C-alpha cells in the first residue's frame, strides 16, 4: 500500500496533466493550478526538513570538533542571526515586518549580496582557465574548435579592417548553421528524453525516486 498509493497518484495526476495540455477549458486550468499550488505547500513544509538537516549536520561537526568545524559554526551563527533579525521579535512576529529590520537588511545588502557577487564574478576567471584548456590544439577537432573560437572572438576587433568583415560573415555562419544545427539536435534529443522519462514515471516503470517500502 505504501508503494501502490504513490504510484496510483502519480499515474492519475500524470495522465491528467497530459490531457490538461490538450484541454484549454477553465475547469481544466483550475485543477491544474490547484495541483501546482501543492508544489508550494510541499516545498514550504520540506524547507523545515532542510533547515533541520543543515542544523544537524553543522552541529554534529561543531560538537565533535570535526575537521574544519569552524565553518559549520559560522554557518549556524549566520543562520540563527538572520532568523532572529528576520522575525523581528520586538515588533511583529507574524508579519513580514522583519524583512525591513535594520540588521537583517544590512546583513543582506552588505554581506550576503557582495559575497554572492564575488562568487559570480569568479566565473570570468574560470572561463579563462577553461578556455585555455579547451583551445589547446592537440588534435584536428581541437584545432578546429580553436579556429572557430578565434573567429568568434576576433570578429568585433576594429583593427582587422576588411578582414574583420569576412570574419563577421564567417562567425555569423558558424553561429547560425553548424552551431544552431547542433543545438537543435540536442534540443530534439532532450525533448524526446523528457517525454520518455515522463512516460516511464507516469506508467510506474521508473520508480527509483519512491525509495523502498
Amino acid at each position, binding site marked *: 500500500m505504501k508503494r501502490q498509493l504513490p504510484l496510483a497518484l502519480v499515474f492519475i495526476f500524470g495522465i491528467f496533466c497530459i490531457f490538461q495540455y*490538450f484541454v484549454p477549458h477553465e475547469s481544466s486550468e483550475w485543477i491544474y493550478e490547484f495541483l501546482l499550488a501543492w508544489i508550494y505547500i510541499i516545498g514550504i513544509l520540506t524547507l*523545515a526538513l*532542510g533547515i533541520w538537516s543543515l542544523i544537524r549536520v553543522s552541529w554534529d561537526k561543531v560538537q565533535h570538533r570535526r575537521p574544519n568545524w569552524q565553518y559549520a559554526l559560522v554557518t549556524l551563527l549566520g543562520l540563527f542571526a538572520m532568523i532572529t533579525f528576520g522575525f523581528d521579535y520586538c515588533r511583529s512576529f507574524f508579519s513580514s515586518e522583519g524583512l525591513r529590520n535594520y540588521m537583517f537588511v544590512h546583513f543582506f545588502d552588505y554581506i550576503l549580496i557582495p559575497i554572492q557577487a564575488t562568487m559570480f564574478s569568479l566565473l570570468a576567471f574560470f572561463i579563462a582557465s577553461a578556455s585555455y584548456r579547451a583551445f589547446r590544439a592537440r588534435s584536428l577537432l581541437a584545432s578546429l574548435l580553436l579556429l572557430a573560437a578565434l573567429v568568434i572572438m576576433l570578429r568585433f576587433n576594429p583593427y582587422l579592417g576588411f578582414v574583420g568583415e569576412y570574419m563577421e560573415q564567417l562567425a555569423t555562419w558558424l553561429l547560425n548553421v553548424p552551431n544552431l544545427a547542433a543545438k537543435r539536435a540536442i534540443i530534439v534529443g532532450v525533448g524526446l528524453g523528457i517525454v520518455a522519462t515522463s512516460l516511464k514515471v507516469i506508467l510506474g516503470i521508473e520508480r527509483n525516486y519512491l525509495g523502498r517500502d
Partner: protein
Amino acid sequence: MKLKTLIVLSCMLLGGSVFSAAQEVTDATALTDTAAVAAPRPIADLFARDSENDHGHSLTLSWTISPDDGAGQMNVIGYELYRALSPDGEFELRGKFPFGAASYIDVGAKEKESSQYSPDHTDFYYKVRALTSDPEVFTDSEIFGPVQSYGQWFNTGRIPVLVFVIGFLTTTVILIRRARGGADLFVRRLPGIEAVDEAIGRATEMGKPILYVLGLGTAADIATIASYTILGRVAKKVAEYQTGLIVPCYDPVTMTVAQETVKTAYADAGRPDAYSEDMVYFVTQSQFAYVAAVNGTMLRERPATNIYMGKFFAESLILAETGAFAGSIQISGTDEIAQIPFFVVACDYTLIGEELYAASAYLGREPLLLGSLKAQDYAKAAVILLAIIGFLTMNFGLEGFKELFYISN
C-alpha cells in the same frame, strides 16, 4: 536730405514687415477655419467571434478600416473599441489602437474580483470608433452583436503533439513487449556511465569520498528525476565498496527524495547500517551560496570523484573548474544546452542532453527501461527523416508539409 530719405525708407520697411506678419497671422487663421476636421467615414464589416482554443473570456474582432484611414483626407488617427451588454446599454472602452489596425483580441480576466473580468456565455455588443485629431470629431461603426465567449474542451491547434504522443506511446509499448519477449535490443554505449564504476573503484582505492551534485533543479524537473536513478546506482556501488558519499542539496524536496534513494540503495546493497542521513544534506537555496559550500567541500574533503547530474545554470563552470583544480575525476550530465560546453571542457566525461535520460535505462538493463530507450532512438530517427522531407519539400516550394507541424499556444 539723405537722412530724411533713410528714415522714410526705414519706416516703410518696418511698416512692411509688420504688415506681412499681420497678413501671415490672418492667413493662418483662415486656413484653420477652412481645414476644420471633417467627420471620417466609419469602419465596415465589424465582426466578432469567440477566440479559438482558449479557456474563454476572450473575443476576436476584425473589421475593414475606414476609407479615411491612410487615404482620402487621411484624418483617422486611431480607433477605440467599445463594448456593451445590450445595443442600447452603456458602452465601455475596451481598447485603443493606432490607424491601420483591423483586428483586436478582447481578452478579459477570468477572476470575478478583477476589474477586467469578462464573463463567458454572456451576450456582448461591440462598436468601433474612428478617431480624428479633434477629440470632438469621430464616427462610430454599426453595432455588432450579440456575441459570446466560451472555453473550448479541446485545443485543435495541438493535434500534431497529440499524434506524436500517441505514436511515441504506442512505439514504447510495442518495444517493451518485444524486450520482455526476449528480443535482443541493441543499446548504444554511454562512456560517461561506464566510467562511473571505474570512478567509484578509484575512490575506494584512494580512500576518498564521492561527491554527487544533483544540480539546482527541483524534484519536479525531469532531469532531477533522471539524476535520482543514477544516484541510486552510484550509492549502491558506494555501499558495496564501502566508500564515502557526499550529496549536498540545493532544494529541500530534492534532499528528501535523494535521502530515500540513497537509503534504498544501501539497503539493496545489503548495508543498511552504513547509511547515514548526514550523507545527503541541505545547504541553501541561494545559488552562489550553494556553489561556495560545494566548492568548500571539494577543496577540504578532496573527493576522488565528482558527479554532476541534473539541472545546472551559471554555477556549472565554477563547480567543474574547482573540481578539476582539486584533481578529482569528474562525470557530468545535464540537459541545459548552455552549460554543456562548460562541462565538456572541465569534466572527464559528459552526458550530453538526452544521454542523461538514457542513463537510467542503460544502468538498469531492464526490458521495461530498454524498451523506452529504443522508442527514444526510433523517435529520433523519425525526426531526422521528417527533417529531410521538410528540407526537400521547402526547397520545392511545398509549404503544406510544414503546416502539418504547426502548433498553436
